[in-house]
């Protein structure tokens, strides 16, 4: 499972500057469990962005996994319609979305930091290895 944290909000706000129809794509698996990119966080981000700029038209989608075409097919029309997509998935999700739907107007909204294993049901996570900031640039995800 991948553990990530949210990018600073002002950075996200700057990324979205100038776009009106925004799609926030949450991801329903790893980043949901680590409380950074699930439907709940996406809705919170939507409320926050709408509060700061009333003119923005924001929609939220939550495919079970963004790294799997099976779950993305249902949302194809929403993804096509939006001016810009803010993906709250890990590097794999961002890469997959970009390859299949759009190259330029897709931004990652998270910083994946760890790969983690569920150690037991009660104690939670055991951290394994760190990754880093995801930058999307022309069909390649660089991990710093």
């Amino acid at each position, binding site marked *: 499972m991948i553990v990530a944290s949210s990018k*600073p*909000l*002002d950075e996200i*706000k700057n990324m979205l500057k100038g776009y009106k129809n925004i799609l926030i794509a949450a991801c*329903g*698996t790893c980043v*949901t*469990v*680590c*409380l950074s990119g*699930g*439907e*709940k966080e996406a*809705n*919170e981000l*939507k*409320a*926050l*962005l*709408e*509060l*700061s700029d009333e003119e923005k038209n924001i929609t939220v989608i*939550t495919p*079970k996994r963004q790294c799997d075409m099976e779950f993305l097919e249902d949302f194809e029309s929403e993804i096509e319609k939006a001016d810009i997509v803010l993906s709250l998935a890990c590097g794999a999700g961002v890469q997959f979305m970009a390859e299949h739907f759009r190259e330029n107007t897709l931004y990652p909204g998270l910083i994946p930091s760890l790969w983690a294993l569920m150690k037991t*049901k*009660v104690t939670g996570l055991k951290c394994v290895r760190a990754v880093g900031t995801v930058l999307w640039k022309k069909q390649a995800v660089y991990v710093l």
Partner: protein
Amino acid sequence: MEIALIGNNDKNKYLKPVLTENGFDVFLFPETEKINHIRSRENGFLIYTPDEKISKDYIIFTEKPVFNHEYKREVNKSWGKVYDITDNSIKEKDSKGLPVVFLLDIDGETDTEGTMIALKNAISIAKKLKKVYFISKTVRTGISGMEEMYLEARKSGVKFLKYTKADIDYDIDKQQFKLKVEDMFGSIGIETVALSIAGAGSMQDITAKILDDMKSKTRDNLDKYYLAGYKTSVNGIYILDGLTEEEDIKNLNKIIADIKKDRQDYYINIDEGKCAFCYNCVRVCPHAALEPDYENSCMKPVKYKCNECGSCFSVCPANAITWKEDNKTAIEGKGLFIFACENSGAVLINELIDFTKKADIGISEISCGCRIRPQDILNALKNYEKVAVITCMDGACRHIDGTEKIEKTIKRAKDRMEMLGLNKDNIYHIKASWAMPVYIKESIMSVMEDGENT
């Protein structure tokens, strides 16, 4: 639904028709001394007498029980006598230079929960540079964290007194209490306007008498410090101790509403498709009302266990938990939106409805502070200038840590707003009790008038 009305007095005459009208089978039980004990079963109670066991779904006491059973403590504890004789606004603002007194009137060993709550309140008042006395028969240090609390209390200036015998007197004109506290070495007298008594020990009768005096002599201004209670800490057991028929009927209607709500098997729905099977809800549920369903890889609720506290809802990362019923929005306005916890703030809906209509306030009744998320606060701010959340006082949440959770929620909402450069000073948190309508009203007024955080 079968309900037992226990008590030998005239109240049965006017209570029975109301209950029958609402579809209850009423069982009158006037001989309270015959009851040996009461046991709870899956969805109701068993009343044991020397001759038989009687099975009933709900119990209402109209008289203080004299029997010795396992619920005695809970029922007696809630028996109408308000612990905080004077409300906290007096303690904090207008104590006339006299000390604030906490008196733990418990024979034998002090109960942990009560001591913790009293200590927490004593510390918070002492920190506001007030003189605070903490008087008890024994000093309880049984559980971890307790000794640190005593230490913190001493550091903040709380004075501790141990007593063997105490006596209270109330001067109704001056609205002042006179305490005479004795131990084996001597006695001292303390005067105060702000007195909290917890427990039901040897001074129970004197306290009851004083409260009755206060109630009868200041009937017009009663709500200031007294509301007759109806809830006990056991779901399904209620008490009715109003002075008048009107007061009792009002509380009975609240009980009926509570029972009708209580009949639900579950309050939540879990979306199998969304559930990430992360176990967060199982870990936090204070009522053990969720269990894993390994076949479908999702959690499922357990029948009749849910208490509608919202702990699971607040931690579910996948938004898989939804409520069967939405929050009840009572009134709509524009200036201020209030999320009121039903245990502390629901009094607003019932008592202050006229005031709120005039003052342009929107209210949503929530079951507990856990039930709202940062996004709810942010969404409310889109339509309203200010948002306030009313929850129980520290340590008083009848579920678990609802007040602490809402503090975190508000902090998260404020932090996120600050990151985006939005004004975060328009979110307020009011801690109150259902027995403090005047305090709640004053707090709301101050929220509406200024930008100062309550």
